């Protein structure tokens, strides 16, 4: 009866109209959201456009920086993919795996274990945002990611969860995205990575090798245990072959202990575990030259790691060799392009590291120099941050010409911070000048602080709260190397009557 009335009085047309309107809106909403998403990672969405693969390396940014799939294909014939999503945490691994497995099954899943040690109970926008932005606007997997993330965290007031669910709320203001051709590519399924997810890091920061290897265990927090057990259960239920891995980085003892405890759990489930920090010497990794930052190797480091690990995979797992299959010949073509590009990048990173090593040598020699002119010339280096403070300097016979690059004027109080030739801050006047700041550091190295003061009563420069002061008429200079995160030298340049400046330490 009801259905007759529904059809008789034309209500079905209205119902159809409503459904069609909602459908068109949903479609347009989906497109609009994708266009505004500026943090879409090609490594993730590009997987959808790949052919058959054998190995998937899953994790955060680490998964994109260590292993070179095209080189592995060229050397051993198996097809791998670096499936790294920036700032991704173990919370999302089940959803990442679900996403990847929806596209295809893999012979081997390599899972980055480092994010387990980074798990926190805080809600961090970057963690939830950078992963969920890779997924379909109305994807169940996306909503499940959110549920998984938020359900294990204590929500504080003021969390705008709606803007996570409908992420256009947080990206729509970036209307510049509309003018970016690349943003529209996503609509046509064009987003892809030519390197199979590998990203080259042409940066360098020097470190010392952390000697923290231990067999001790650190009890996993309830949060870590719950998240990790869920992941292990998932992998077991799906009958996956999984290798849990910890890549070389500036690891702490506490983290190493956490990995040991995780390894025990992994063993219970019958999966493989490998902490490659134990093999850094075998790989030939040099901590002074091979790191981009604390968490990632640079290209030089990735070459060394890759060489060791790609062989390890071939030796320990039964992976196919596709080099004989003509259908995979395009991998070799891609490899040729990759190789050519990497040659250029190798020379770039080598040049960069050499310049840093040179700056270090110069830095070490600074404290041996007594000649002011020689010292001032040596500190003019793009790798140094120079902090200067001067008060009441008299320019007799152009003695201040030595300092012209730093714009010091006679008779005034001066505070200046320079990174190479780039002016960070200069303040000079007859009044008291003060400035405080942080030396640059590649994340997540904690930044060191500095302060500079120049007044009628003299000058002072502090580094990490330790103050060195001087009476008026002198120039205080501190030389900091951003690549080594070290103060190479700290001097007082004292103006001697008509004899220029004398250098004191």
């Amino acid at each position, binding site marked *: 009866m009801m259905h007759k009335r529904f059809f008789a009085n034309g209500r079905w047309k209205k119902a159809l109209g409503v459904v069609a309107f909602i459908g068109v*809106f949903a479609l347009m909403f989906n497109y*609009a959201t994708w266009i505004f998403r500026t943090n879409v990672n090609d490594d993730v969405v590009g997987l959808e456009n790949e052919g058959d693969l054998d190995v998937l390396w899953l994790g955060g940014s680490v998964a994109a920086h260590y292993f070179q799939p095209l080189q592995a294909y060229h050397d051993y014939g198996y097809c791998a993919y670096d499936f790294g999503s920036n700032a991704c945490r173990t919370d999302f691994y089940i959803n990442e795996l679900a996403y990847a497995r929806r596209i295809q099954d893999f012979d081997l899943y390599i899972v980055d274990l480092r994010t387990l040690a980074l798990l926190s109970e805080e809600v961090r926008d970057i963690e939830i945002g950078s992963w969920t932005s890779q997924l379909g606007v109305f994807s169940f997997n996306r909503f499940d990611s959110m549920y998984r993330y938020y359900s294990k965290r204590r929500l504080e007031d003021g969390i*705008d969860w*709606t*803007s996570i669910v409908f992420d256009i709320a947080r990206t729509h203001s970036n*209307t510049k995205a509309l003018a970016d051709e690349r943003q529209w590519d996503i609509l046509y399924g064009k987003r892809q990575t030519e390197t199979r997810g590998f990203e080259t890091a042409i940066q360098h920061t020097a470190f010392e090798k952390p000697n923290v290897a231990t067999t001790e265990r650190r009890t996993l927090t309830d949060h870590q245990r719950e998240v990790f057990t869920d992941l292990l259960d998932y992998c077991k239920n799906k009958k996956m072959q999984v290798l849990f891995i910890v890549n070389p980085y500036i690891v702490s003892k506490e983290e190493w202990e956490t990995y040991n405890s995780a390894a025990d759990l992994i063993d219970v489930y019958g999966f493989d575990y490998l902490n490659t920090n134990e093999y850094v010497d075998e790989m030939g990794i040099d901590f002074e030259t091979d790191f981009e930052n604390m968490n990632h190797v640079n290209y030089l480091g990735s070459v060394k790691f890759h060489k060791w690990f790609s062989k390890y995979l071939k030796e320990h797992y039964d992976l196919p060799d596709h080099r004989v299959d003509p259908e995979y010949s395009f991998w070799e073509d891609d490899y040729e392009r990759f190789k050519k590009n990497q040659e250029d990048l190798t020379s770039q990173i080598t040049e960069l590291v050499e310049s840093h090593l040179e700056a270090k040598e110069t830095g070490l020699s600074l404290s041996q120099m007594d000649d002011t002119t020689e010292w001032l010339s040596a500190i003019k280096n793009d790798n140094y941050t120079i902090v200067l403070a001067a008060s009441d300097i008299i320019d007799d016979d152009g003695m201040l010409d030595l300092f012209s690059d730093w714009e010091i004027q006679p008779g005034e109080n001066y505070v200046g911070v320079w990174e190479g030739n780039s002016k960070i801050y200069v303040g000079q006047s007859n009044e008291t000048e003060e400035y405080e700041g942080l030396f640059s550091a590649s994340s997540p190295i904690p930044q060191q602080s500095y302060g500079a003061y120049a007044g009628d009563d003299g000058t002072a420069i502090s580094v990490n709260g330790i103050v060195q002061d001087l009476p008026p008429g002198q120039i205080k200079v501190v030389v900091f190397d951003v690549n080594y995160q070290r103060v190479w030298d700290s001097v007082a340049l004292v103006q001697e009557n008509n004899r220029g400046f004398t250098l004191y330490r």
Partner: protein
Amino acid sequence: MTILSFSFYLLVGISLVLYWLFPRQYRWVVLLLSNGVIAWLLNDRSYVALGLMYGMIIVAFAAGKLFDSLDEKKRLKKFVLIAFLLLEAGILLFSKDFVYYQNLLSISSISSRFVPPLGISYFTLSLIGYGLDCYWNKNLVEKNPFRFLLFGSYYPMLTSGPIVRYREVGNDLVSVHAFSYETVCFGLQRILWGMFKKLVLAERIGIIVNTIYGDPATYTGWFVWIAIFGFLLQLYADFTGSMDIIYGVSELYGIKLPENFDLPFMARNLSEFWRRWHITLGAWLKNYIFYPIIKTGAFQSFSQKTMGAFGKKWGRKIPVWCALFISWTIMGFWHGGTPKFLFVTLWFWFWIVIGEMLEPLFERVVNSLKIRTDCFSWHLFQSLRTFALVSLSAGIFRAESLRGGLSMYKGALISKQNPWILFDYDMWSSFGGLTIGDWFTVLLGLLILCAAAIIRLTTGRSVREWVLKQNLVFRWGLWFFLLFAVLIWGKYGPGYNTADFIYKGF
């Protein structure tokens, strides 16, 4: 939670589903329960504020019942009326004006802990109106306290009104509404239209206005005129935007509320402007302040005396102006009672009275100069003149204080004139963080507003009705355009601190 937040619409959605699924006779009960939850959330989960609101409603309900039962006992009835008015109006004035006078007189902080319920200005006037109507036997007294509770706490009206009369709305709230596809569509469309006005237009104009008002020492001369004219446009888009959302939400339940605006910028004089702007407040003042004052014995005898002294024509007007003065003063107190608000409202009173006094002179000048008054250009001149007078008042309304507002005007008039700023495109292209795209959006938004007004004027029906008569592609195109305009160009989400509706505070 505000009426702009997603969680509000989520709750409205849940409430609507329940409302329309429930048997017709119980739908108002769903609405009453929804009111409780949504009003509590709109009041930042304050039980005190919610309790105070319900307390004031119960007092009005009890007063109505008492007036009904005390019909024969005039003196007692009057005593109850005075007590009722003192209580309701007292709470309103305390909540709105006390902070100002407390600071002025340096009285220790009592009211700092007092958080008035949202919409107190609106529902209090509605409750007082109900009480007075019962007192004057103009109302059928409501016997069911829950139905009255629904009237007093109807959540769509808590943000910016309208101020309603029980006899106009009370029955509609509880009466049986059949589900209407068109009504629900109209409701959604009106919400969208309100969002467009608020998030796309008002918030953008607000950036210009805030930048200039935020630094009056730098922005003088022509900047001030831009700010005050801009503010009136912002206020219009903001206030009417909030009303559109409120009407839209109400329409989703099949309940129509009295309109608050009727193309106010078409008004040719200030009296007409106030018949088109915040209509329900004007009507309330007319019904419950102006007319009762005029009808008092004291005013009748005053009228006799003024007619004797100034003749019939002027003698009749003087008591009216006095009654208007009281009405406008009360409106000033309703807005906040500070010198700024009193100045703003009495400014209107002053110009209305001056206009009436000088009307014969104006007519003579117009006639002697042979100015045509039955043409578009004359009507345009009158509307622009009204717009300018209202803007001058709005300029003070927006300022931090009366002194601050007057000093801005001083900056506009005495400082060096700077008309060249109008042509300094480089400055405007980054003014207050606005881009060329933002200016284009503002311009487009204003054009759309004008187009909507023209459609209403020429067709005599609402824009939604006009759109409904168009072809499907045009209709859908229009609504999709508005939807995505709000989604993409709206000022909302993280990074934006979308200001509350300007009239939410009143």
